[in-house]
Structure formats: C-alpha cells, structure tokens
C-alpha cells in the first residue's frame, strides 16, 4: 500500500457539534423527508429543505445530500451532527478510493462500503443515528440504482424508497404508480404526487423538496417549484 495516503480518513469527532443523543425516539428526525425513485435511465433523489431543531425551523434551504462520486449521491436524515459528519466521512473515503485506484467505485460497492461502516459503528461505543438513501447510476450494467439503508445498517436494493413518516404516505402511492421502465417525465409526475400528498397530510411544513437527478451523464439539480397551494379536503 502506498505510504502517501493514510489507510482511512478518520472521522473527526467534534468537528460538528453533536446534539443530545436519543432524539430519534422523540419528535424531530422522522419528520425529515427523503424520497428516491428509479426509472428507465435515471434516479431521482428528493430531500426536504427544512433544517429543524426541536420545534424550530432554522433553515429553509438545507441540502441533505452529498455527492460521493460522479455517479452516486447520498441523501441522509437523522440525528443532527451525526448526519453531516457521517456523510462527509463516507464522501472523503469514497473519493480517496477513486484517487488511489484511478477508478470509481460502483454504486453497489459504494452501498456495501457505507453499510459496513455503519454496521461497525452500530456495535461500537458511539453509533451513528443516520438513515440513508443512495442513488446512483451503474455505468457498467447501464442501469439506475437505489439503495435504502437505515440507522441499523439494514441495506436493501429497491426500485423506490422513502425514510421517516414520508414512508407511510409515499410508498403506497409508489406501489400503485411506479413501473421500472418509466421515463423521466413520468418519474417527476409521480414525485409531484408524493410531494403534494406530503404537503396535504404531514402536520408540519417541511419547506419543499430539493430534487437531484442521477443519470449516465452524472448528477444534476432539478428545479422544483413549490408555489402552488394543495387543497385539503
């Protein structure tokens, strides 16, 4: 192994102030919305823009995603402090791998690496309380990918996924309307159905969604209007 690079980039505790532990069982983290939809040649990742601390919205333009490499994007929710710390730790190690080996890790390899890190942390003195969606595009298989990972490090490859309370509202909609070969316009239409349902039924305002798309050309942010009112019956 080359001596120029460290074995792994150690996560630096205290770089981000960690908030009180155990908040995941109270109100707060489950209200964050993470959504993922795959289609014929794309993966959509959507995350709520509200950064919440207790009953207060601190920010309405929060980006809950990190690009791991050119073709995989990780969306995260969970305990404040853990989330960004874990995501940037993973991001740095994935990028380190690309530099050392002059090739990018495939989405499935990335997902299993993330799961391994989360699983070993789970049985350590201080686990990460982080839920993840890993959207990617596998350039070798020429297929979009989506992985669902929860804070216990359960990993599942899925065609569509959600985290938090959004699961209860969106998975049924996606069960009914999703097909593996939908095109991008149909994908965005289903996402609009999900976001309208969340707006209609979630008791809090999650400040709209930030939407990112992963295709064979890479990752891009998609404009996502959030101005129309949703009628509540």
């Amino acid at each position, binding site marked *: 192994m080359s001596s120029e690079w460290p074995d792994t980039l150690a996560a630096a505790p205290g770089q981000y102030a960690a908030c009180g532990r155990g908040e995941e069982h109270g109100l707060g983290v489950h209200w964050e919305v993470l959504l993922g939809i795959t289609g014929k040649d794309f993966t959509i990742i959507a995350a709520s823009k509200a950064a919440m601390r207790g009953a207060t919205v601190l920010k309405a333009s929060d980006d809950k995603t990190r690009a791991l490499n050119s073709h995989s994007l990780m969306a995260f929710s969970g305990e404040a402090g853990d989330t960004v710390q874990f995501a940037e730790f993973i991001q740095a190690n994935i990028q380190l791998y690309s530099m050392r080996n002059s090739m990018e890790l495939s989405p499935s390899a990335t997902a299993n690496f993330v799961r391994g890190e989360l*699983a070993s942390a789970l*049985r350590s003195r201080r686990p990460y309380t982080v839920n993840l969606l890993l959207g990617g595009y596998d350039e070798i298989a020429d297929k979009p990918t989506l992985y*669902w990972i929860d804070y*216990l490090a359960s*990993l*599942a490859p*899925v065609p569509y996924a959600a985290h938090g309370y959004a*699961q209860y509202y969106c998975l049924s909609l996606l069960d009914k309307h999703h097909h593996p070969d939908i095109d991008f316009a149909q994908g965005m239409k289903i996402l609009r159905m999900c976001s309208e349902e969340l707006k209609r039924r979630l008791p809090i305002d999650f400040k709209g969604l930030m939407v990112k798309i992963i295709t064979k050309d890479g990752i891009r942010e998609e404009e996502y209007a959030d101005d129309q009112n949703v009628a509540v019956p």
Partner: protein
Amino acid sequence: MIPPPDGGACVAMVGKDCVAIACDLRLGMQALTVSNNFPKIFSYGDVHLGLTGLATDVSTVSDLFRYKVNMYRLREERNISPQTMANLVSSSLYERRFGPYFVSPVIAGINQTSGKPFICGFDSIGCIDFAKDFIVSGTASDQLFGTCEGLWEPDLVSCACSGDMG
C-alpha cells in the same frame, strides 16, 4: 433489551437423497414493507445458509461467512462440508456470546464425501440443533412447525419436498 427482529421465515428439509431450503423475500418493519427483494439464503459452495432475524445482522453474518468460507477454500483447496460449516457457524456465533448477532441460522447441504443430506439449525449464540427431518426459523417458525409436522414423512422425493414450502 433484544431489538425487534425485522421478520422473516426460513425452513430446511431432508428428503430422499436431497435437501431443500426456502425463505421469504420480505424486509419490513412491523406492518411496513420496505423491500420485496431481500433474500435470506446464502450459498457457499455445497452448503446453503439461511439467516432470519435482524436484517443488519443477516447481512453482517452472511458477509462474514462469505469471507471465512472463501479463506477455508483457499487454504484447503476444497469446498467446505455442511458438517464443518455447522461447527464454523457455531463457534463464530459463540465468539459473540455476550453481544450476539440477532440471527437464527439454518444450514442445508449434501456431504459430497458420504453423499448424505445434512440439515441443522442454531440459536443466536451458536447452539446446534441437529435434525433428521426439518428445521424452521424466523418469526413464522410456529406456523412452519405446524405445516412441517403435519406434512413431512421420510424419503420425500425432491418435487414433494419443495412443494411443501410454497
């Protein structure tokens, strides 16, 4: 406190010169189904290992045994036998006696030396349950026990043996 298992069912059965092993594909949290594509049987050469319980430990334990069995195959230049695999699983689980993996493994395979079918089950800390007929595990183990007790008989042929587990 023992964390709630993610659910799942697994059954292994002996027939005439054959074994069968089956599992469900659901990954769920109580009533919510997260995935319908989460297999719980993993194959290591001649041996098949079924793992039910906490989903994270199903993945961790299956990855661990993939590593251990691959290392065994490289050292010994032969496949691992079901009996040896059973002892490997037992000792590996007992290593975690006071912080166990929350899984209930099941093994099924044919011993290539003797040609005899072999099945067994374990608890989460590696106590082996040898059986001549069938092994069940998971959150549906009570129901599987009932159907297996009712339908199993000696020397089932392979089509009848797998038909039980539809």
